[in-house]
């Protein structure tokens, strides 16, 4: 049962990560490309992290903190990264009005 759940999260996570990267590769301009990684990929990594939490908790090691920390980091930093990249792009285009 738990294995199925873990497998499910892994599949979802992998798929989202891939979708995000396909978006990054295929979408026509930077502002659209930004959506892929920031949303889909973060979600994908989140899925795999949940799988990991489930997997290692099931082995009786107790709740692992690493995944929580990683998730926390990701959720704080992903928007900042996206914001900064967009700012940089705006700056390069010349319409840099804060």
């Amino acid at each position, binding site marked *: 049962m738990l294995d199925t759940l873990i497998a499910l999260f892994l599949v979802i996570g992998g798929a989202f990560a891939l979708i995000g990267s396909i978006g990054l590769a295929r979408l026509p301009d930077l502002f659209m490309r930004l959506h892929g990684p920031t949303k889909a990929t973060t979600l994908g990594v989140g899925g795999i992290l949940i799988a990991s939490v489930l997997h290692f908790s099931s082995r009786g090691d107790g709740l692992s903190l690493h995944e929580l920390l990683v998730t926390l980091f990701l959720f704080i930093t992903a928007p900042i990264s996206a914001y900064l990249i967009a700012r940089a*792009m705006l700056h390069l285009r010349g319409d840099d009005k804060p």
Partner: protein
Amino acid sequence: MLNAAIVFAFACIAAALLLNFWRLLRGPTTPDRILALDTMYINTIALLVLFGIHLDLTAFFEAALLIAMMGFVGTVALCKYLLRGDIIE
């Protein structure tokens, strides 16, 4: 079933990394490349966690944690350079 799922996830992440790298090579602008690098870092986190599940080892989790942190700092530095030139002012 778990093994099949792990293999699938590995394949997805590998493909994702390849696509990221392709974007990094193609550009066309520097922010594109920074974004590609940032995404590579994030996908690598997934890769490491997967690797840990695959080997049943927790020893690589610290690495995943650091990637999350370092990837961000790298992105900030690169963007700040594009914006201001001087990254520590």
